[in-house]
């Protein structure tokens, strides 16, 4: 085998490998990119059913309800708000340690029947002053915080914000 032939083989192999990797990446991207949506986004445009996405905002004051499902699994329902709109969320699992009413939360799941978001995961945050960037973004877009006016207020202050109702 000549050197040229060998080089050709190796180049061909590399092309196949990289081609496969690219194809795999693109196919996997097609179905598995998880978009972030705020409650207002969902009200404005219904997300495609059966597709996972992330929903984030503040846990609405007084909305947390603890139930037991028909299968005996404990369940929890709460509403996630960005100040203008709120979406009901149902979750069956152990909540992260810093889950509180009024606190920023990011959940992963898909829309279920009755416009209820079925969360598979409620993302854990280790620090009570931490504001998930997605939530900050949702609050900014809903008009609760203007980035031009400086840094977002600390999460401890967000926590005491009563979510503003639509039109108020």
């Amino acid at each position, binding site marked *: *085998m000549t*050197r040229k032939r*060998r080089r050709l*083989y*190796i180049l061909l*192999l*590399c092309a196949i*490998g*990289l081609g*496969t*990797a690219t194809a*795999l*990446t693109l*196919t*996997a*991207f097609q*179905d*598995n*990119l*998880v*978009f*972030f949506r705020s409650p207002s986004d969902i009200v404005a445009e219904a997300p495609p059913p059966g597709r*996972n996405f*992330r929903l984030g905002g503040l846990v609405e004051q007084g909305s947390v309800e*603890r139930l*037991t499902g028909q299968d*005996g*699994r*404990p369940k929890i329902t709460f509403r996630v708000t960005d100040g203008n709109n709120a979406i009901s969320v149902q979750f*069956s*699992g*152990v*909540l992260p*340690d*810093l889950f509180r009413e009024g606190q920023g939360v990011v959940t*992963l799941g898909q829309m279920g029947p009755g416009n209820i978001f079925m969360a598979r995961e409620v*993302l*854990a*945050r*280790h*620090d*009570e002053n*931490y504001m*998930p*960037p*997605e939530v900050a*973004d949702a609050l900014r877009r809903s008009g609760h915080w203007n980035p031009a006016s400086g840094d977002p207020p600390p999460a401890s202050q967000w926590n005491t914000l009563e979510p503003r109702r639509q039109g108020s």
Partner: protein
Amino acid sequence: MIPELGHFALAMALALAVAQTILPLLGAQRRDARLMAMAVPLANGVLLAVLTAFAALTVSYAVNDTSVLNVVQNSHSAKPMLYKITGVWGNHEGSMVLWVLVLAICAGAVAGFGRESPSALQARVIAVLGSIGAGFLLFILLTSNPFDRVWPPPPDGQGLNPLLQDIGLALHPPLLYMGYVGTAVTFAFAIAALIEGRVDAAWGAWVRPWALASWAFLTMGIALGSWWAYYELGWGGYWFWDPVENASLMPWLASTALLHSAIVVEKRGALKIWTVLLALLAFALSMLGTFLVRSGVLNSVHTFAADPARGVFILGMLGVYVGGALALFAWRAPGMTPQGFFAPLSREGMLVLNNLLLCCICAVVFVGTLYPLFLDLLTDRLISVGPPFFNLATLPLALPLIAGMALGPLMPWKRAELWPVVQRLWWVAIVALGAFALAMAIAGQKFWPALGFAAGMWLIAAAHADVLERIGAFRVPVRTALARARGLPRAAWGAAIAHAGMGVTALGIAGMGLATETLVGVRPGETTRFAGYEWRLDQVRDYQGPNWTARRAEITLLVDGREVMRMAPQRRFFPIGRTTTTEASIRTNLVRDLYAVLGEERDGQAVLRLHHNPLAPWIWIGAFIMALGGGISLSDRRIRIAAPSRKAAALPA
């Protein structure tokens, strides 16, 4: 006084590191043996200075010196002494000092290998290491000085993040840093080779132990981090494809590839340019990992304090080192002539395939990790890329890699035939098929876990086949075979053991694919059935720890009404820092883990999440076997004597 001493030592180290960069490089260029010889004392001087700084910081932590800002922010007098010490590197500033310390130790080790005067290669390597050290020291002094004072000193510190007060995480950063810094050493060798314009077998022999050591430490560091996530975060998982995890996985993949291609350089003198490029890439990915973790640009479960100034500085260093290295590569690499011919089907060919697949996996992980960042920067859309993407995109690439891991070691160098290799692996294939069929039958038609079991058994059996083949078992008398086993180079043993370790990890991952979990709300005295046990909640009570209070659920496990074990998951509250953590209770018998997490309490009910994780510990045991294989390889006599042998040949002065 002591913090000032530390600060001064850091500044001193910077000055020495700059000298360490310039003088040996100049000496090597001018063939001036005296200037080259400066490399050794300068490297030792930097080591001494950084060691002093690190000791000063440790003392500040140990005596809880609250006039030091770093101590105030990350420590507290009520913390156990062990975590006061490990807290030194549990924060950004301290961990950077540790980084530089490990780098200085490595530079000292490179210097220590030359007994009389260093060779030109050695001098250049030490110089490049000096320049990396200088960059990081500048970074520490300008943006993250651990010795900043506060006045007036507060009465006590704010405490360390409770999740980090843990022995697994105390050891995780040093191990990972040794791995990262190891890639810096191979990077320095690559740069030195590019400056010399020459890569030969002696270069390969120099680089391989460093690549091996770096790889073994990275393996252990990642395994420890994964283990920590498993028992400390309480989610029951072991790998989340989180950006910070990926940041450590990418250098590991590159370093695994480097390790294998360095063998080809050493043994056959081929793949030189590619190996040099891999060494550059591995270091670039380590730097990228540091950047991702330290700058906080990525939204991660491991949120560290983010500071844009630091991010920009590290990005700048990344640009200078990697950009400079690639420019040097583009300039010098075309001058290196490739050597060592081999057929596509040969040991070399299989190692090329290994490199190709590992790099493809690395590229996929890279894209998946950074794509959300780019999309956010360019279009302001927030997306995330989760485990389904990574599983789907990496698994098809991992399968041929695993298949090849068995074939490669059995192939001869230069030219091989497929048929004799397949013939030697027939029983291995039967074992793998048997494992697949057995897993399908027992675990209820779950394809992917069954495939994982097959892959694991394939690797373990193939590692045995490799060793048996080499010692000629069943072909020669037992006594001769044993004698040959004793004479087998440790590098061969190490490779077989590391490959088998990968198999053990694959079995663990496959086992975790069969994991089950349940969520129940139970009152004290009530029981629930799960995983063949009767789980009885006895009570939930308050519990007092050294610097935390907890709610502790006491659970008794029964089989046929007979008590077999107790578990006590907790939810801990740390008053300093006002944080709550979940402390899972894990009972293992090495074949399966029982894992219990206490959730919230409501109306007298406690919410419990119970997991049954078959073979979970094997994931980390396998990783440690891999690292052990690396260590055994490293102790090979050929590697130890090969390293300094270049000197005689290469030193003209």
